[in-house]
């Protein structure tokens, strides 16, 4: 790629012809403008998107919308069961995926220092897993958790499915956080006679903690926004909030989906209100992540 080989005509000639030079400068300016326009498009789209949901969703947003149960009537319905469902799914997913993901990253980065064929295979496998569409995880959850383990469309089936989905992401971010810990921490600890595990437990993990937390929060915000796998295992609108692991549940994005497809026009506004609640929640999570990152880099 680097060596393009000799080309028959020079790609750009430093000719002294003033007309050619002017033309080259003009195309250069146009190209610059084009690049700027492309970059500005992204910002513009974000502004349009945000204003669209605020305009659509704000009128329906109220305290009673937040705290009421679902209803078939658009002016009566609330979002509470979906808020609770999202919290359940997020909390359980974190409880399942974080210990496993951090441990896997510790193995790959700390215990297995000599890169063997097996670790390379695991690493390749993790990067491939992060490219698998989320709906495929949903099919895995449907067959294994919902049917085979007979958990149906319960909170725990949803959290297990979501846990597998975010696992590669948790592993990758934890690996990055562990790599950022200076080697002198490990060497210092080992030189004082600690075992490898003691070095990890008392030196490396505490040092990597802010980085891990930031990554984990970002992974959890993915879990909160993700819908497809939960629909695949059979989750659908539920009138009331789940109370335990075996209860059926709904989450905010499922509510957005259902209300957007509802034939009653008025439900489209409630969908926008649900988006506002969802985005506010994600914003909160991300602010915590940014705060943690800022504190860590201090």
């Amino acid at each position, binding site marked *: 790629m680097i060596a393009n080989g000799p080309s028959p005509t020079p790609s750009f000639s430093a000719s002294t012809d003033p007309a050619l030079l002017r033309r080259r400068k003009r195309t250069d300016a146009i190209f610059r403008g084009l690049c700027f326009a492309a970059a500005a498009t992204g910002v513009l789209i974000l502004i349009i998107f945000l204003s669209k949901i605020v305009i659509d969703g704000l009128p329906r947003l109220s305290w009673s919308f937040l705290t009421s149960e679902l209803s078939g009537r658009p002016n009566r319905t609330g979002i509470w069961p979906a808020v609770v469902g999202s919290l359940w799914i997020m909390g359980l997913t974190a409880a399942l995926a974080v210990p496993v993901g951090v441990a896997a990253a510790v193995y790959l980065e700390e215990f297995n220092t000599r890169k063997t064929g097996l670790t390379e295979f695991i690493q390749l496998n993790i990067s491939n897993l992060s490219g698998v569409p989320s709906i495929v995880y949903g099919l895995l959850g449907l067959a294994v958790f919902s049917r085979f383990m007979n958990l149906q469309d319960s909170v725990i089936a949803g959290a297990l499915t979501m846990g597998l989905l975010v696992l590669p992401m948790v592993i990758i971010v934890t690996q990055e956080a562990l790599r950022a810990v200076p080697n002198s921490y490990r060497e210092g600890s080992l030189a004082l006679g600690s075992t*490898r595990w003691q070095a990890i437990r008392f030196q490396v993990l505490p040092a990597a903690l802010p980085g891990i937390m930031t990554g984990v929060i970002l992974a959890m915000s993915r879990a909160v926004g993700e819908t497809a796998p939960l629909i695949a295992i059979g989750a659908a609108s539920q009138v009331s909030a789940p109370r335990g692991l075996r209860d059926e549940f709904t989450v905010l994005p499922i509510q957005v989906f259902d209300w*957007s497809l509802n034939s009653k026009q008025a439900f489209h506004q409630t969908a926008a209100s649900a988006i506002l609640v969802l985005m506010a929640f994600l914003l909160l999570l991300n602010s915590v992540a940014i705060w943690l990152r800022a504190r860590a880099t201090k």
Partner: protein
Amino acid sequence: MAVVPPNQPLLSLRPSGGGWKLFTERVARFFSFACAILSVVTTFGIIWVLLSQSVPFFKNVSPIDFLTGTEWRPTREPASFGVLPLITGTLMITIGAGLVAVPLGLLTAIFMSEYAPKWMRQILKPTLELLAGIPTVVYGYFGLFFVTPLLKPLLPGIKSSNALAGAIVVGIMILPLVSSLCEDALNAVPKAMREAAYGLGATKMEVVTKTVVPAALSGVMAAFILALSRALGETMAVALAAGSNPQLTFNPTESIQTMTAYIVSTAKGDAPYGTIKYDSLFAVGVTLFSFTLVMNIFATRLVKKFRQAYA
């Protein structure tokens, strides 16, 4: 005396404290190894589930009919399971999203890495990250209630959910991915190459299009493929914006159905265990999985090649 395996040179000093320390060490090592292996188990779980669960389907529908059939009517009597309409629907979304995201993303990346002053980058980067953080179902909402109404005056006769709106919103969705991966690739090109081109009297555009982008080409291509594979597997945005009407068409104003949207809408409706409709979920799943797997392997190869070039 605990025996230290010979492949742990750092432990061969046998830290004081004896048995308990070595025991926890072993437990920690074994537990973390088991967790790392779980990711491999997940992969095999996915492959096993997709293959084994689609066996009953392929007992009823021959794979040839499945792959060459032009009608996907799982509910009609007699049902017809030709996957081509779902594949064309998926490809239409993927290609359309690529047409939106590839030029925009590459130009944005060029702007960020070559032109933008620091303060602009500080605005652009978080903005794109924010765009990337929006849940996909929200993109579906925009497609349905913003993009399509916008297109209606331009294209009369456009369906309320249509492939074009789906492709546009998915394109916007993968834009941050394209631009950030491309930017990484462009930034990896050594500065000396740019300087050499400037030294020959090239303008900035000539440096970018004739030196930097060609040098970063495999990285840029990998970015495109990864983003397209994301578009291919995207579910909620297309289920809302592009519709649930499987038909063999290349008309972007029509309502279509992608493989992913079929899985969602079927799981959402009733697909009782043991029916052919339930089995068809996995047959479609295995098709989708093969598509994304091939693309991801291809992209990984390209990235590796790119890394070697500038190692």
